[in-house]
């Protein structure tokens, strides 16, 4: 297969296993490109991409922007805090106004789940979902799987536990879809209050004991507690959460095998993982960031190839 089965990247839910493999094989080539003395290729010199961020972001936005620039696309940036959204403009109007300026692709982060899908039905550009509420964050899941593949050789058959605030996490849902699609075994681990009620229906195991979960897994993906999405208290205190669900060096060293530690960032050091774990040899957190650019280049390149002249 040499072509994606989709015209937009709205969620992992819409992808096939072959799409993921194609993205990874293309990302391999881009990873070589971004390690050259001159890290740029001219493929997308006639493509214009708008990055629309209706919600805060640092690394995703930078990573997308860098990926676009490394492919020689023209890039325009927009963040909701400085826009007419505040003046009451609707999403479709905002985007159509931007598209009138001849934009071919839209990378969008939005606080509402399904914003990407909604947009793809109403405007003509290719849409890349860079996170929609607590729904999906497909490029993060792709780079997480790509990093596991790079570290352990393959994703299929690996045991992966996602630890923390599953309820409010778009990273968790996209990761579950991506990992299951590639044949990995997935468990989620966290306090009951932060696990969605019907999470087992996605084919994942549930474990509330962190030590048991870590003993089982090859890879632990540690998620941040998303305080900004919490309207009520889900656990008694941050200190108690850290004691129950925080990974420390002592805990890691007491396990029977060496596991891989991942984190999508931003890290709350001392809460979900301690500093010495984040900076340890077992952590591939910074590899994830590097791979993020290569994977996003692959996604943008493959979607751009489907835009008709």
């Amino acid at each position, binding site marked *: 297969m040499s072509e994606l089965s989709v015209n937009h990247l709205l969620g992992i839910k819409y992808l096939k296993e072959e799409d993921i493999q194609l993205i990874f094989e293309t990302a391999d*080539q881009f990873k070589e490109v971004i390690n050259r003395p001159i890290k740029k290729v001219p493929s997308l010199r006639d493509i214009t991409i708008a990055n629309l961020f209706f919600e805060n972001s640092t690394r995703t936005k930078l990573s997308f922007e860098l990926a676009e620039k490394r492919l020689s696309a023209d890039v325009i940036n927009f963040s909701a805090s400085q826009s007419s959204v505040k003046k009451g403009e609707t999403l479709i109007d905002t985007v159509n106004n931007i598209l009138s300026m001849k934009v071919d692709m839209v990378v969008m982060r939005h606080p509402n789940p399904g914003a990407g899908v909604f947009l793809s039905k109403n405007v003509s550009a290719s849409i890349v979902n860079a996170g929609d509420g607590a729904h999906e964050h497909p490029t993060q899941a792709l780079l997480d799987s790509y990093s596991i593949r790079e570290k352990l050789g393959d994703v299929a058959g690996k045991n992966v536990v996602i630890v923390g605030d599953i309820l409010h996490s778009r990273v968790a849902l996209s990761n579950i879809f991506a990992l299951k699609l590639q044949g990995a075994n997935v468990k989620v681990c966290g306090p009951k209050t932060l696990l969605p009620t019907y999470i087992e229906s996605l084919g994942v195991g549930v474990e509330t004991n962190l030590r048991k979960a870590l003993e089982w897994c090859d890879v632990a993906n540690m998620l941040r507690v998303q305080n900004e999405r919490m309207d009520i208290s889900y656990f008694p205190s941050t200190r108690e959460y850290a004691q129950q669900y925080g990974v420390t060096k002592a805990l890691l060293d007491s396990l029977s095998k060496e596991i891989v530690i991942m984190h999508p960032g931003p890290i709350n050091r001392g809460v979900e993982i301690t500093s010495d774990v984040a900076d340890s040899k077992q952590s591939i957190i910074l590899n994830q960031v590097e791979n993020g650019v290569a994977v996003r280049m692959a996604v943008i390149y493959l979607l751009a190839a489907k835009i008709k002249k």
Partner: protein
Amino acid sequence: MSQKTLLNSKEIGIILHRLACQLIENHLDFSNTVLVGIQPRGIYLAERLASILRDEYEVKDIELGYLDITFFRDDFRRSEKILEANKTNINFVVENKKVVFIDDVLYTGRSIRAALTAIQSFGRPEEIELLVLIDRRFSRHLPIQPNYRGRQVDAINEERVKVNWSENEGEDMVYLINQEKDN
């Protein structure tokens, strides 16, 4: 579809040795020269030449790299065919080196145009030469000519030159394939 043989394995062998000798004539001990095979099909020719130079003419320390030009092509989103990338493997800097591009067939010259851009990511070479096994005359879209050619071929547009290597197709042969349907 009909095909005729342009070169058989013996003829290819003779040509490879001639090309190797011509390279030695211009580059002597290859101390400041690097060979770059153009992906996907130039790498077999590049490997063959490198091994002839190494084993039969005792040229030591030949630097050989592979260059993928997919992301530098000018037909992205224009051709029906989806462009698939291959591996680039260049473990040296080409700054102030003499670079020899190696490809199997020179047709429109567009691949070489892309390669000229792509190689700039690895430095500024002193000079770049081009070696091809088959040079299709009268079909160039760009002012690009080879420095070393194995065989010149006059082929009309419906015809296709196919180079087979024993590494991937089980035989060393060059065919001229006529893609028009026989009536």
